[in-house]
């Protein structure tokens, strides 16, 4: 009963894992929610004013930064997102002119963080936003390992309720019909908020119209399976700190193959191992039987030999006995003959 229950539990676990990876097979291909929103960042228009950073800080009610937002010297160093900074603008000196690039969560169509999270705290919403539910989070930080864009950040200073923090695409504001904070504040129109499909058309149109200004690449159209936040630029993206070697495979596909082996192991290993056990048992049994057999044979042989020996001894004894009898008989006859002769001999002269 207990064993069966345990086997059931394990099978359930296997099925659970199997179900998640089953969708990796076949021809199913997820291209994002059809009406979902996104943002297009045009680095040729960005002037590095950090107004988006300030707006983000304000709408998300984040703590005030140690260096005020109008201080542009912070951009001399490589910066990344932090628990109190959902977005940063970095400056790259390309030739004699600076090029700016805004960083925040790219809201992947098939997010690595959501695939990696072992409590399912990340959800890709139909608005396009990837949101994080801190009420589920255990704080393992595997999402931060998984994210190819190095976006999620952690409250390492909090001993009791540390949270994973990242850009929410201002999902609550979108649902209220407002623009994301950063988009609303951008004075140069470097950020456009629209449906992802429309953004792709806008981007293509700009590249087509101004081939001298833009490189022919919409970053995020296909990277890691596509993202909701996309970029166009006048310089190669790797020059402004964006990796061009990420490939176009959605993150969940890196693990689905290996995960799909799980049910096979759960199903096959017990059978094979029980088989190995049975073979071992059988081998032991045969060895035991053979030993038994050999012993019995040896005993029988010994017994037979002993019987033979005994019989030979008996026969010999019989023969000896017979010989002795014969000898005795012969001896007795001889003695009788001698006695008779003796008796006859003296009598003869006496009678004459």
């Amino acid at each position: 009963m207990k064993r069966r229950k345990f086997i059931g539990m394990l099978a359930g676990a296997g099925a659970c894992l199997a179900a998640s990876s089953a969708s990796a097979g076949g021809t199913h291909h997820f291209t994002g929610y059809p009406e979902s929103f996104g943002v297009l960042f045009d680095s040729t228009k960005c002037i590095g004013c950090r107004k988006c950073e300030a707006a983000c800080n304000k709408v998300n009610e984040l703590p005030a930064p140690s260096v005020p937002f109008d201080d542009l010297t912070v951009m001399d160093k490589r910066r990344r997102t932090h628990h109190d900074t959902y977005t940063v603008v970095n400056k790259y000196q390309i030739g004699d002119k600076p090029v700016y690039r805004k960083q925040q969560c790219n809201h992947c169509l098939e997010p690595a963080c959501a695939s990696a999270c072992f409590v399912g705290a990340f959800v890709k919403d139909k608005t396009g936003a990837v949101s994080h539910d801190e009420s589920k989070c255990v704080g393992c930080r595997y999402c931060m390992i998984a994210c190819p864009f190095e976006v999620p950040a952690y409250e390492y200073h909090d001993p009791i309720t540390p949270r994973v923090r990242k850009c929410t695409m201002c999902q609550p504001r979108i649902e209220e019909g407002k623009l994301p904070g950063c988009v609303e504040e951008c004075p140069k129109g470097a950020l456009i908020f629209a449906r992802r499909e429309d953004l792709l058309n806008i981007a293509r149109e700009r590249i087509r119209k101004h081939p001298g200004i833009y490189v022919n690449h919409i970053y995020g159209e296909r990277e890691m399976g596509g993202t909701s936040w996309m970029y166009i630029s006048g310089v190669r993206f790797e020059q402004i700190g964006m990796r061009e070697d990420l490939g176009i495979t959605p993150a969940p596909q890196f693990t689905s193959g290996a995960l799909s082996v799980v049910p096979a192991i759960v199903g096959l290993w017990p059978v094979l191992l029980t088989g190995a056990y049975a073979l071992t048992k059988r081998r032991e049994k045969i060895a035991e039987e053979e030993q038994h057999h050999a012993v019995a044979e040896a005993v029988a042989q010994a017994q037979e030999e002993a019987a033979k020996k005994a019989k030979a001894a008996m026969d010999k004894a019989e023969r000896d006995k017979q010989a002795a009898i014969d000898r005795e008989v012969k001896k007795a006859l001889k003695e009788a003959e001698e006695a008779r002769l003796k008796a006859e001999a003296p009598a003869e002269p006496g009678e004459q």
Partner: protein
Amino acid sequence: MSDHTTPNKTFWTTANIITAVILVIGLILTVKRFTMGLGSVTNLSDDNPWGIWIGFDLLCGVALAAGGYTTSAAVYLFGMKKYHSAVRPAITTAFLGYSFVVFALLYDLGRYYRLPYPLTIFPGPTSFLFEVGLCVALYLTVLAIEFSPALWETLRWKKLRFWAHSLTLVLTIFGVVLSTLHQSSLGGLYLIAPSKLHPLWYSPYLAMFFFISSIPAGLSMVIFEGRLSHKYLHHKMDQTHIDEAPGVALGFSKAAAVVLFAYFTLKWIGVALDNNWHHLATGWGAWFLVEMFGFVLLPCLMYAVAAREKNLNMAFYASVVAVLGIILNRLNISLVAFNWQLPAEARYLPSWEEIMITVFIVTLEITVLRICLNKLPILHEHPEFKGAH
């Protein structure tokens, strides 16, 4: 077994003093960690969310506790009864190993009190970490039952002891299934981040590499610990253990040599498959070659020589190199070759407090292991349960 301590022998031996100092420092840092947060004791950052508590405590801890499933599978499933006396020490080490892996995890998890969430109310089955958690939790239960007869014998709770013992076969099979799954899924954890792990260490076969290498890791730990207990706990061993020990070491050496060679070959197939040969000419390549030849092929050959020439010293040295090799491999994947493209100033180096807490946890584990080996019928059979296996 009689206790050999004499009354005038003090408890405060050098080893015990060092242990006590480490435990005190560890406790102070534990208080700091749980009152002031991860950031107060670790060098973890947003770029480097996992440090040595995952790279060493979790990855190496689990790999080096693989002796439990390898030994019990050899004895109970593959009929190698001559290694029977190695089962209990191996199960004990594995049980303590896994217990302390979970204990160490509580330090690393931001909200450690939610540890049961993934297994109960919020399962996230697309994650390799979910598989790790599920299998480690189940396997820890299996190990607890497998370990329990030593306890029941000491307490003379015969019914429980025979009940636990009657499950041996089923538990052994479960143990192998669960170990296969979570040993491999620890490697699987890194499959999702091909852009962060150096190509020489990243491979679609990471999960398989972790599983295969866990076998020599477990065998090596049995040889290594067998030698140490032979040296320091000889008086706790009964004649069976003393007689069987050389056979265990040599038999396991042979097995480890074979599996290490298979692993060595598979790793090169991994390099060939992704056509990563050109990386070998770089500094990373040199480091990879050090790992492959110095810490996989070398112990493999040492084990082969040990098994062939029945050289117990060689088997012991081979086990040391092999164990170091496993640690090197796990640290390379989790720390050294992870985030290899980040600029030097953004790379991770553990803080002294992180190292100290790891030392604290290892010391705690060794202390508990010493107590178990001294007080429980592990290296010897309980007189009332002789031959009852």
